[in-house]
């Protein structure tokens, strides 16, 4: 609770004019700025969840919103995740744009029935008569030594559901731009925020209300020898790994997938056609994770370019260990370097 509290929503011009000067912010601050911006721009945007109003969210993502936009648009709900998702569907059908927070992804499962059976289908079911422009935000992933259920990364569950967009930012700029686009999107978006990155890095951003496209991957580093594909907190380990690989004379392309569903395969395929090798790095358990889909599609669409099988570095198929052993579960840059070297040594 340092810097960001002073910043929250304050550097933003109150008249709604886009900022012309950049700010240096963390990812959680960027999210907060995007929420302020979206609420200022569109009176239909409402924010709801547990502890989001008075408290400003347990991670302070919603700081200052209640003070600025009032208790009618920033709502502390009772402690009930099914309800949070369900009322968001109802609000969205009434043309509000609810941005609901689930306090941790480990408590998101109670929302699944509504997300799967309703949010994802309302437009399709009514052939466009009703729609569901909602955002379900949740801090996700491990790496902050939190208690059980506070480190989940089960994004694959949402990715399997047709009708949901699943977006994972990995930096302040992408968090800002992608969240704005998610809120503006006319359909439901699940927005998963790698909490380990919340205060990990700072970036210069312009609070100009400009969103980033939700239908593309982001190439963060160009390379020749192999393509490293990841999202969320793993992006930072991957960038660090690419740096280390550079020292060994290995040039790695790094792609942040960012939107996991629908998936921008064009960018991924083009990269792998260039490099001939791909390593997909995923924090979550491996079995039936998103990395499997990416791997399957890469070999479907770039088979002839592949000089080695597409490799995956995924979490173990076990629950996230309690905090003493958390480091063993999470990948560090060294693990990625190792996997990359193995991949390059493959026939």
């Amino acid at each position: 609770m340092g810097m960001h509290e002073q910043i929250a929503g304050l550097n933003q011009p109150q008249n709604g004019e886009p900022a012309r000067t950049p700010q240096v912010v963390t990812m959680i601050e960027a999210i907060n700025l995007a929420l302020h911006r979206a609420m200022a721009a569109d009176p239909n945007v409402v924010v709801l969840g547990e502890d989001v109003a008075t408290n400003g969210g347990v991670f302070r993502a919603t700081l200052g919103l209640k003070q600025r936009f009032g208790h009618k648009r920033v709502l502390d709900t009772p402690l009930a995740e099914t309800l949070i998702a369900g009322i968001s569907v109802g609000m969205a059908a009434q043309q509000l744009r609810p941005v609901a927070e689930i306090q941790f992804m480990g408590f998101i499962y109670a929302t699944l029935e509504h997300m799967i059976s309703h949010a994802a289908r309302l437009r399709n079911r009514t052939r466009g008569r009703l729609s569901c422009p909602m955002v379900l935000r949740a801090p996700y992933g491990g790496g902050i030594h939190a208690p059980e259920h506070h480190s989940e990364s089960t994004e694959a569950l949402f990715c399997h559901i047709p009708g949901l967009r699943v977006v994972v930012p990995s930096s302040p700029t992408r968090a800002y731009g992608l969240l704005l686009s998610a809120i503006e999107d006319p359909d439901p978006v699940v927005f998963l925020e790698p909490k380990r990155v919340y205060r990990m890095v700072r970036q210069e951003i312009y609070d100009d209300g400009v969103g980033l496209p939700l239908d593309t991957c982001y190439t963060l580093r160009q390379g020749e020898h192999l393509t490293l594909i990841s999202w969320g907190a793993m992006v930072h380990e991957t960038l660090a790994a690419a740096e280390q690989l550079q020292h060994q004379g290995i040039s790695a392309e790094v792609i942040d997938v960012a939107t996991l569903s629908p998936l921008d395969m064009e960018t991924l395929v083009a990269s792998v056609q260039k490099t001939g090798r791909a390593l997909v790095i995923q924090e979550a358990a491996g079995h039936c994770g998103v990395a499997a889909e990416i791997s399957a599609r890469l070999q479907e669409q770039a088979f002839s370019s592949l000089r080695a099988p597409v490799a995956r570095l995924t979490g173990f198929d076990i629950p996230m260990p309690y905090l003493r052993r958390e480091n063993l579960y999470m990948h560090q840059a060294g693990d990625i370097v190792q996997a990359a070297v193995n991949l390059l040594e493959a026939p």
Partner: protein
Amino acid sequence: MQYTTTPRQQQQFITPEGELTGSLPEAMTGDWLQQAYTTMVLVRTFDQRVVALQRTGQMGTYASCLGQEAIGTGIGLALQPDDVFLPYYRDQATQYLRGVSFTRQMQYWGGDEWGNHFPDQAAQDFPNCVPIATQVTHAAGVASAMKIRGEKRCALVTCGEGATSRGDFYEAMNLAGVWQLPMIMVVNNNQWAISVPRQIQTGAATIAQKAEAAGIEGFQVDGNDVCAVYDVVRYAVAKAHCGKGPTLIEAVSYRLGDHTTADDATRYRQHEEVNAAWQREPIKRLQTYLHQQGLWSEAKEQSLQQQCKQEVEAAVEAYLALPEQPLADLFDYLFEERPRQLDHQYERAQAKLTALGGE
């Protein structure tokens, strides 16, 4: 009529024998009564026709509203056009009264998503909800939107007594209590949830008393008495419109038919019970009362039956003549814009359709 918050009291105006229990509120004029009666007869005619269609393979699995007509009609007559209705799947009468034609209702039950594309009058109403009780939280969301915007409207949601066992029901009711939402929950307590009888569903003596858990008002009414249903819903609507918060209404009825056309209720319940329930059904009692009041006659009844048949047959013909929806519709309504990722899949579907001999 005054409503108390005593949830155990069951409201009734017209007894199963067609007698008044007191005086009828002014609003329930002879014309009104005849409209209610007409609607119930029409909906029953429709309902039985759809069951028949299913038996001959021209309809999907269908949930009959036999014996539930008073609830649907009472709600439909009390609700205002601006309000939002969130039905479960025995609300044919309410849907009809809100402008969702029989043809469109059959289109839905017949397995075409366009059946949920309601006309303008009902543009904001929700389609039938299949996952039990989930619609109750949606209603809380709809009501929240109304409250946030300061509108003089309300959300009315229906469900069965079985639905009251699900967390959704309770979570939404609890929220309605805290936020004082303009929301009305009407529970059609028809005694059965498929094969599970009411007493295995909950240990509470009434469904109405569940309102206590949320600190809101709860009523029990005779769900076979269209006057009672109308009256309590009208009260709850007026209350919601003037910002006085939510209401839970238990409408006591009986599911006279099978659960759906896929069910055979003789497997789990006794003829005697069903027969006894027929003595309390909603249409006969109102007919008796209308006769007694001199508002009805054999001739009127015959001509009504004739009219209902005609209206229903016309709707059935229109239903059977509906064109198959374009294949593209399966892909084009998932998102506002079809993502390019679906283009290839759409082409694959198109090829398949061609192979199957379709358009």
